[in-house]
């Protein structure tokens, strides 16, 4: 049996904002942007939660509930810096740290008792170190697998430490509401509730076949989780599976040339990322969101490429086919997936693209040296 820690930073974005501006201490703080805008709450302080606010809530709703709150756009880069700093601190103790998100980390404590002592005591030490060093509060869950450790870190927040001893997993989970299990969201929650499942114990006592019939593989996983089983292997490093670039407009756009110019910009950035990693894409998708929130995505499979021109032609084509309503666009994005490594082999049988490939690699070198803006591939002027 393993001993897994799950460290979850408490209201992480808000904690960082309070480092930048200590006057936010004790106030209801909401990170997510303009309270009259279209965003959602990315994070909110515990003071704000008392008004019924929670993350992912539309920011306008939040503002209605808590007009006296301090609404911030957030400092994404700064969150990343603190996240890296916390990770580096954890790596002083653990050879393997799995970063689950910007503010969540799994640590494998198995066999560490001899060096670091009892898990709960060590968790306290870690928690207070992170507070003293970074002024960041966090909660820690300790259990025999990642799922339960995650549920445990959420059990007492903020600044909680919850230890689920081996063999007590089912007992710990049984009285918790089903939505505490990661993966039970907007779709599955009402479905399970309507069938009488209220607490995790109800799921544990159900027949796995029934859950499987109801939810497929997720149902089987759910049954296992409810019975205290789960993955205990930490994963580090991840290969990029796709590249996305999107942008939301302050004002909805209707001008086709303007949108195309923006698409061209997004394609340039995405293709540069592809070439930096020596990748090629073979699936190009676009995403459009109209003013009325109607969203559509269109994709096309192509020969592997990293060429701005090729990708843009596809994107333009997909866009022209999709932009068929007389409604403004509020968001536009592109997505490159099915990535594979670019090798010289790929170009052996191709003649027309070879020169462009060399040209693009030269562009990449120039950008490496002088920055992305130093050289541009012409399309349309951008305001």
């Amino acid at each position, binding site marked *: 049996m393993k001993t897994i820690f799950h460290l979850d930073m408490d209201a992480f974005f808000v904690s*960082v904002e309070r*480092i*930048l*501006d*200590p*006057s936010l201490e004790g106030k209801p703080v909401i990170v997510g942007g303009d309270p009259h805008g279209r965003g959602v709450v990315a994070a909110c302080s515990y003071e704000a939660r008392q008004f019924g606010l929670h993350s992912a809530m539309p920011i306008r709703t939040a503002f209605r509930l808590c007009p006296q709150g301090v609404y911030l756009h957030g*400092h994404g*880069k*700064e*969150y*990343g*810096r*603190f996240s*890296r*700093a916390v990770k*580096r*601190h954890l790596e002083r103790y653990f050879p393997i740290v799995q970063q689950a998100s910007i503010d969540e980390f799994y640590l494998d404590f198995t066999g560490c008792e001899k060096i670091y002592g009892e898990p709960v005591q060590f968790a306290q030490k870690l928690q207070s170190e992170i507070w*003293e*060093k*970074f*002024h960041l509060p966090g909660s820690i869950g300790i259990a025999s697998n990642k799922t339960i450790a995650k549920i445990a870190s959420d059990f007492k927040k903020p600044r909680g430490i919850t230890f689920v001893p081996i063999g007590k997993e089912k007992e710990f989970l049984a009285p918790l509401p089903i939505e505490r299990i990661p993966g039970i969201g907007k779709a599955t929650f009402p479905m399970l509730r309507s069938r009488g499942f209220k607490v995790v114990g109800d799921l544990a006592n159900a027949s796995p076949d029934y859950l499987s019939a109801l939810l497929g593989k997720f149902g089987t996983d759910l049954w296992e989780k409810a019975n205290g089983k789960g993955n205990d292997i930490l994963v580090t490093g991840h290969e990029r599976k796709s590249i996305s670039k999107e942008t939301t407009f302050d004002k909805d756009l209707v001008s086709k040339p303007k949108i195309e110019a923006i698409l061209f910009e997004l394609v340039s950035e995405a293709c540069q990322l592809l070439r930096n990693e020596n990748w090629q894409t073979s699936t190009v998708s676009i995403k459009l969101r109209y003013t009325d929130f109607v969203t559509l995505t269109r994709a096309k499979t192509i020969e592997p490429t990293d060429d701005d021109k090729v990708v843009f032609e596809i994107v333009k084509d997909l866009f022209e086919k999709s932009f068929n309503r007389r409604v403004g666009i509020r968001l536009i994005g592109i997505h490159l997936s099915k990535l594979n490594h670019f090798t010289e082999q790929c170009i052996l049988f191709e003649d027309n693209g070879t020169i462009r490939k060399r040209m693009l690699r030269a562009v990449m070198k120039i950008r490496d*040296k*002088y*920055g992305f803006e130093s050289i541009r591939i012409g399309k349309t002027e951008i305001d």
Partner: protein
Amino acid sequence: MKNLYIGTAGWSYKDWMPNLYPKAQSANFDWLEYYSKYFNVVEVNSSYYTYISPKIVDGWIKKVEAKDDFLFTIKLHQDFTHKRKYSQEQIKAVKANLNQLSTTERFGGLLIQFPYSFVLNKENANHVKDLVDIFFEYDKFIEVRHKSWFIQRFFNFVESNKSSLCTIDQPVIGEAIEFKPVKVGDNLYIRFHGRNTKAWKASLGNFGKAQTYEQQNERYNYLYSPGELVEIEQKIKEVLDTVKKVFIIMNNHPKGNAVANALELIHFLNERIKVNVPETTLKAYPRLSKISLN
């Protein structure tokens, strides 16, 4: 920590009023004396432009008398590093300053800074060697900015000549290296130029053109964020135990940003002790209330 020297590049900036120096100053108010209440080192940059009279150096020594561990580091005159034209007289003048500071135990080291265009080749290597020979008896910090110098042979040369390699932090553009302190020599000398990428890029195009004071200094106009400082702290700590002395010089001077960041680094690198923050600075940088004694 005893051997940690954290301060700024220069202390005489008008735009440090009111963010460090108060606006209302009595007749005998002295900037250096005031500065030395809060910091234990300053890098002298005026020595890069002029040969400083011994009288002036005497004055400095007197002004910091109350601060036992205060050190000056001296930037070598551009005649030596950039123009490569120097006489025996000029060598004497520089050495006179260094000796004055050494005998009064106020000498931190000599900064020999070369420009980005100074690449490793035989002629340039000989030039470095000549300067190192001239100032052999003094602790030296060598700042080279071009990648070509980052080879073991040069490191060995630095180490065996009473010198240390200077680490810099600046916007990562072109062949510039991301901040990473390396131990080459007994001491660590780190200069922070800010990360104002936009102004830095613009300044490359303005080289040699007539500019106002503000234009000239815009590329240093940058305030490091707490997250950046925490990451910087972690990187410095990786090599801290391997060196004798650590000098950290903030050169992001416009408006006194260097002052705020230097105080923050004093806090971070000294196991988060509370720091004596001037009232003026606290007012200008409210986030320093978290680290301030008062």
